[in-house]
């Protein structure tokens, strides 16, 4: 029995539910072909080194398994026929390259989703900052004190948020 690992790229447009389905189908076909899964790791959405099927981004998933290697060809055929898998690569690994799975699939997918959903929050903050910058310009016409103005403006911004 040898250890192998397969790194495959899933279409980035898939939602969390579909992503989990695909991971489970891959694991199922692996078990059918005599593989014993050691660890599954979701790397998340990454920019590809080059376009694959006109896609610029993809979700990388690493799966490590134990197998005698005789039915790996059937597993590769299954990966080839899956339309939502952009690319895959199966490699033989040594014993020291095995990773321990610390988190479940659900927590890993949820964690990657939380990271991707942070980007719109940053945009919201940037719009608030623009409002803060606009207010001192109006008040600077009346008063020359530049240092006190931003503090007042921040207070107004906070009040707006509370409202």
């Amino acid at each position, binding site marked *: 029995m040898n250890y192998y690992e397969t*790194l495959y*790229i899933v279409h980035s447009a898939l939602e969390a539910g579909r992503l989990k389905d695909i991971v489970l189908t891959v694991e199922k076909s692996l078990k059918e072909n005599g593989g014993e899964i050691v660890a599954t790791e979701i790397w998340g959405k*990454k920019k*590809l*080194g*080059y376009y*694959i099927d006109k896609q610029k981004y*993809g979700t990388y998933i*690493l799966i490590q398994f134990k197998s005698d290697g005789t039915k790996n060809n059937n597993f590769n055929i299954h990966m080839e026929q899956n339309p939502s898998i952009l*690319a*895959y*690569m199966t*490699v033989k690994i040594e014993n020291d*390259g095995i990773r321990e799975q610390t988190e479940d699939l659900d927590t890993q997918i949820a964690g990657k989703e939380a990271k991707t959903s942070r980007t719109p929050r940053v945009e919201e903050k940037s719009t608030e900052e623009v409002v803060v910058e606009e207010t001192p310009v109006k008040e600077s016409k009346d008063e020359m004190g530049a240092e006190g103005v931003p503090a007042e403006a921040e207070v107004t911004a906070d009040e707006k948020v509370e409202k």
Partner: protein
Amino acid sequence: MAFISNHKVCVFCENNEIIIDYKEYKYLRKFLTETGKIIPGHVTGVCAKHQRRLTNAVKRARNIALLPYAIDPRNA
């Protein structure tokens, strides 16, 4: 970019903790030119044994699109 210096010592022979693996693609970028080519060992100072492993790792990373085959410096 490359580790270009007069005193050339293999980085991987000096430090045994560095693992040459295609999954460490961010580290492998150090051994590529800005157009994506592998820098030869006599330039970087990497010994022949580790250069062989390095090229294999880069080629695996290219196969699974972790690294590009070629980079156009005008677009980068």
